[in-house]
Structure formats: structure tokens, C-alpha cells
């Protein structure tokens, strides 16, 4: 089912947290609401599931306007960050609860619970209490409970935040698998760009109650619309150099780095610009040599990370296949791939 937010506005005690936001989630897709804490992503999620009231605008599930409906009538499945399993009920009763309050017959309940438990791989845990389950298993139960009554939309609020690193990897693919198998429209709220990029069809990046950009993960990575988006995606993060235009080229006066501007862009001489260089585009094949001093080196096994300080103190990051001929303190002159450089105006807009 397609979810549409039209001019959605939310205020708390007179403070407008979200101002006329528009968002369309396509039928069957999984969309990430990605942003730093306080950006309004959870507020948006709570408005969609009917915990918060909207102060302006509309929320549409397909053709249905649910803006003024309580949660009970919206048919939304939610997985909370701490799973919110009912501690006094068995796994079976947890999953069966939504069906019981709907007065389904016992036979139907048993059948539906079994089906969903098999889909989420917890069929053998049905007799246990939540307290006896591991984090990953609790997560599966929460998913099963959210999905058991075939909701129109599945909302996931930071579902992986409480898991350790290994389980997080596993559940990432599990949640995606279940979403694809059920074909349900899903919205994932997260502050972790890796989660968003690996699990979702599209990402909506939010900041200060606004959506900055919505795109497929790959497009967003390579084609960020603002410097905030460029900085938010990518690990290790992108490095920025400040400079200005000079005779149709970008010049960082402090370091002497000069880069050609992208084709078809004309900017008045002396305009302040910021250039973003991803670590994979520095220290490999390139066309602009940059001299600097290695101030930090870290090996991750397959790859090494380097921080290179330029003469004015600006830092460029580089990620390279593992090597051990460069140590902190070494002077290096590495190539920068100017074709992959991203140019932004001083207020952060992409050129």
C-alpha cells in the first residue's frame, strides 16, 4: 500500500518540529528515514502509526485518510527499538495478542501464529517467555507480532540499535528477506547509514524536520544534493576542503590544491566553494597530486585508513588496500581523482 504524507506538520507546545513535510512511500518498497537524532524521523514514524496527532496536513494510506484515526483503526505493524514484547506472556501469546483482541477464532489464531512463526524462524520458541530469549530472537518475535495481522505498512523504529554487531548483520538481511517475502510496504527509522543503505530501496535523509533528499542508496552516495548528505553517507566519511574559484578552476589557497570545475558549471571568480573528496578517490589513480603528512594510520585488515594533513592543517582521508610502507609522520604525495570530486557552494548546495 502506498503511504503519502501531505504537508504533514507537527508541533510540540507551540514549537514546530516538522513543517509541511511531503513524502510518498511506494507500494511494496522499503524506505529508510535516515538522520541524526532530533531530526524528526521518529516523530514522523509516530505520526504514521497514530501515536502522535498531526497538527496540519494529511496522512494517506492508499486512498484512506487516516490523519484523525487512532492507532487501533490504522492497521499498522510497528517494531520498537526495545521490541516492547509483553513480558508476562509466552511468545505464542505475544504474537497471538493482535488476533485475540480482534476476536479471531482459536483455530485461526493457532494457524496464523504458526505461519508467521515459520516465516520468522521462531516456530520452536513459541512456548517461551520473552525474558528467556536472546536479543535477535526477541527481534524476530517483535517482527512476527507486527506482521501477524497483515498490516498495510510495517514501521521499524531503530530495530537493530539494541543488538550486538554480529546479530545486527544477521538481522539486517533477515528483516529485508521477510519484507521482500511478504511484499509489505515498510519504513525503517535509523541513524545508521549502513543499515539504511544495505536494507532499503530508497533513503530519505532528514535534518531539522525536513527531508533533504530521497533517492536510491547508490544514487544518493554518488550524487548527494547537499554537503550534509555527502557528509552523512560514507564510512570513513568524506573530507572537505574550502577554497574559491579562480579562472574557472577551484583553488584552495592554503594548500595550493587546484581542481577543474565540473563541465558546464560557470561560477563568478572568487566565489567561495567547498569540495568534498571521498577517501576512495584519494591515494589511488588520479590526476591531481597532493602533498601532505600522514598523521594517522589504521589498518582494518583488508584495507588501511590514512589521515593526511595538508600544509594548512586541512585533512584528507584515504582508504587503500592494505600496505605497510607508510607510517604516521611520513611525507606523501598522493593522487586525487578530480573527476570524482563533489563541489558545493558555501551554503552547502551541490554545484
Amino acid at each position: 500500500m502506498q503511504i503519502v504524507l501531505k504537508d504533514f506538520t507537527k508541533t510540540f507546545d507551540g514549537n514546530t518540529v516538522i513543517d509541511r513535510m511531503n513524502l510518498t512511500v511506494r507500494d511494496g518498497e522499503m524506505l529508510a528515514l535516515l538522520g541524526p537524532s532530533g531530526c524528526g524521523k521518529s516523530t514522523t514514524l509516530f505520526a504514521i502509526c497514530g501515536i502522535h496527532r498531526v497538527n496540519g496536513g494529511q496522512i494517506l494510506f492508499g486512498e484512506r485518510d487516516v490523519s484523525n484515526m487512532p492507532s487501533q483503526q490504522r492497521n499498522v505493524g510497528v517494531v520498537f527499538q526495545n521490541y516492547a514484547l509483553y513480558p508476562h506472556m509466552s511468545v505464542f501469546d505475544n504474537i497471538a495478542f493482535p488476533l485475540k483482541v480482534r476476536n479471531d477464532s482459536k483455530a485461526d489464531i493457532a494457524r496464523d501464529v504458526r505461519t508467521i512463526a515459520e516465516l520468522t524462524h521462531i516456530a520452536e520458541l513459541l512456548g517461551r517467555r520473552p525474558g528467556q530469549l536472546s536479543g535477535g530472537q526477541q527481534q524476530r518475535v517483535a517482527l512476527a507480532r507486527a506482521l501477524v495481522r497483515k498490516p498495510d505498512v510495517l514501521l521499524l523504529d531503530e530495530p537493530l540499535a539494541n543488538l550486538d554487531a554480529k546479530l545486527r548483520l544477521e538481522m539486517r538481511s533477515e528483516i529485508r528477506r521477510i519484507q521482500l517475502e511478504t511484499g509489505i510496504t515498510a519504513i525503517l527509522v535509523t541513524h545508521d547509514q549502513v543499515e539504511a543503505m544495505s536494507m532499503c530501496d530508497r533513503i530519505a535523509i532528514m535534518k531539522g524536520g525536513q527531508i533533504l533528499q530521497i533517492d536510491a542508496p547508490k544514487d544518493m552516495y554518488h550524487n548527494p544534493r547537499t554537503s550534509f548528505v555527502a557528509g552523512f553517507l560514507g564510512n570513513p566519511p568524506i573530507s572537505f576542503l574550502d577554497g574559491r574559484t579562480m579562472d574557472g578552476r577551484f583553488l584552495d589557497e592554503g594548500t595550493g590544491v587546484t581542481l577543474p570545475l565540473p563541465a558546464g558549471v560557470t561560477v563568478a571568480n572568487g566565489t567561495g566553494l567547498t569540495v568534498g573528496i571521498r577517501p576512495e578517490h584519494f591515494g589511488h589513480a588520479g590526476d591531481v597530486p597532493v602533498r601532505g603528512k600522514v598523521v594517522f594510520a589504521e589498518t582494518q585488515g583488508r584495507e588501511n585508513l590514512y589521515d593526511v594533513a595538508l600544509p594548512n592543517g586541512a585533512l584528507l582521508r584515504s582508504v587503500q588496500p592494505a600496505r605497510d610502507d607508510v607510517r604516521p609522520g611520513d611525507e606523501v604525495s598522493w593522487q586525487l581523482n578530480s573527476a570524482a570530486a563533489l563541489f558545493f557552494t558555501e551554503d552547502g548546495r551541490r554545484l
Partner: protein
Amino acid sequence: MPARSYLTGLAFLSPALFVLIGFFFLPVVLTAVFAFTNMSTSTGISGGSYVITGNLLGSLKAQGVAPTVVDALSQASFVVDEQSIAKAQAAGTDAQFLAEIEQQLSGKAFSEERAFERELKSLRYRPRSIRDLKLAVDQFELSVLNTRFASAAEAREAVSELVPSAPADVVDEIVDASYTGWRWTTSNFTRLVSSSDTWRLVGNTIFYVAVTLSFTVFVGLFLAVTTFYLPAGAASAFSMLWLLPRITPVVLYTVMWKWFTWEGGFVYTAAQALGLPAFNYMKGSVPTAWTIVIMVNGFIGAAFAMILFSGALKAIPVQQLWASEADGASRWQQIRFIILPHLRWPILFVVSYQTLSLLSSYQEIWLTTNGGPGRTTTVWALESFNTALNSYTGNLQYGLGAAMALILVIVGVALSILYLRLFRFDELLSRPKIEF
């Protein structure tokens, strides 16, 4: 739409609202209302009637009502008419005699009993005994004195009939004064302000609250800090011991104190054995009475304080204590610089909470010294209670008691509101997260 979620909230709250309005809001209102009445056992709680008594006439005379009117009211007259004959008949006066009276004297009135009696004696069928004659005479007596009138109009009619010469405003004054029900007045408060007893009560109350409170806080602190340092077994034994006064039913608790301090009791027996002065310590002297009142209440308060303080102490990160010991702090320094600062809010809380409850508590005093010896250990709340609900003389002065209670209520509410501010009530409020 908000209306629907509001309804859910109110539905959940309604049983509580019902009880709270009945047993808090109404009592407060009634206390305030009755503080401005002279209600007592003699006036009753519902309305009264109109009765002119001898006493009332005396005080009316003193207030300047014309003596002729008063005398007229106190005089009886004897009238023979249908009414009085019917009355005499009902009282069992001899029928022949009565028929004779009706025949001979009908319509006559006598202002003096003797004159009427003389008339009757001259009749043929008069009773033989003097006593029967007197009884018959009584039936014809017409008087307002000690007659109960249900309404003011009836009383006014009776008075005017008896003293036709009295001006209307004097009649009104008399009828008004004869009302036996309660009436509105501010005299409770003027009486409280002008009475020297009031100030002694205030002094007693302040002394009692201050000393008991200090006892509570210091003993509570001492218990909490010492049990904190003791091994778990001993600590738990002492804290169980000190909680006993708080959970023991108040009747048994106070009776145990009586056993402890009265003649024949433990301290008495021990003092006798040691050759010390032995008497009823609870009632025998003012200093011992106060000591016992303070200990009886202080022990209960100390238990309360100890629980709060111990809870706060357990919340101190134990690393801080280890660190201070590693830094070479003595035990006293540890208490002074780490533990006491942590207890600042709990102490303030105990002080505020106990001030209020000591101000208005009288149960323990009532059941031990009952304010004695004399009225030396009487506090405001006890006096208010005794005045309104527990008087020895049997005349319960609800109005005056309510006035005293009202003052306590006002002080209590003012203090509570002050504490709400002090303890940042606003921080306890969190908005419901589900807005539907």
C-alpha cells in the same frame, strides 16, 4: 476527537473523583462553612425550634428589653375557653367539674393563679384534694415559657398575643433570640484571637513540632548512617526493630508506652528498685510528659526518616566511597563530605512532610497524655478535635472546632503548595505519549 480520549481518562478517574469529592472536597467545604457557625450539640446539626426559657428572659432583660415586656412574658395567665377546656378534658379532669367550669367561667381570664383557684374552689363539683385542684388549674394556664414553636411565625404570634403592647421589633428580637438551632457567626474566630489559651496552644504546638522533628531527623539520620556501615545482618536487625513502632497498631503502641511509664510499669518499677523518684511519668510531671509525647511520636517519625535516608544512601555510587577511603578520608570525613550532601533532599523532604503531619497529628497524644497534666501537652490539633468531637462535658462545639481545624487546613494547604514548588512538581509531569 480529543473529547474521546478525554472521556477514557475521566472514566478511569471517576471512581476516585467520586470518593475524593465526598471525603476531601466536601469535608473541607463543610469545615469552612461550619467554622462560621455556633453549631454544637445543643443547637443540633439540622435546624432548631423557638423556645423562650427563663434564662433567655434574664439575658434579654440584661440586654435592655423593656422589663414590662419581659415580666409579661414570664407571667402566666389563666383563660377558660374551648381550647383550655379540651386540654383539661384530655388531661383527665373530672367531667362534671369541667362542665361546671365551662358553664360558669367560660370566656373569663385571670392574671393571677390565686384568683383563678379561688373561683374554682367555689364550684360545687370541685375535687376534694388540693393536689387534684392544682392539677386542674394547671390545665388552664396559658404561657409561652418553655413552649416549643416549630417556626418563627408561630413564636411571634404567641408572643404578640401575650404582650400585645410590645413593639414589632422587640418581638422580633425576642423570637430571634429564642432560636435553639445554629446560626452564622464570626465569634469563633474573635474568641480564638482574644483568648490567651490560644497563644499557649500555639506555643505548645510549635514546641512540639520543632522538638519532635529534630528528634526524628537526628535519630533517623543516625540510624540510617550507622546501619549503612554495619554488616548486613546487624543492619537488618536494627532496621526491623525500628520499624516496629511504625507498623504496630497505634492502640497497642500507646498502651505499651503506658505500661512502660505508668505506676507499676517498667520504668516505675526499675526506678523504685534503684531508689529514684517513681511516679506516673506520663501524667505526673510536665517535663516527663513532654519527653514521652516526643518520644512516642519521634520513634514513629524516626522509622520513616530512616527508610528514606537508607534508600538515598543505597543510591550513592559505591565507587565514591571507595575513592574517598583510598584518599584517606576518616569515617567522619566520609559522612561529612559524601554522605550528608547526598542526603540533602531526603532531609528536606522529611522535614517538610513531618512538619505537616506533626502539626495535625494528635492521635498519639490523645491516647497517651491526652494533653495532660492539666493542659500542658495539648496541641492545636488535639484541642480542635476535643472541642468538636470529644468534649468531657458532652457539649461538642462543632463550630469552634471547625474554626480551629480550618486554620490548620489553611496552614496545611499553604505548606503543601509551598512544598510542591520546592520539590519541582512540574518535573513529575510528563505528557502522555499516546495522543489519541
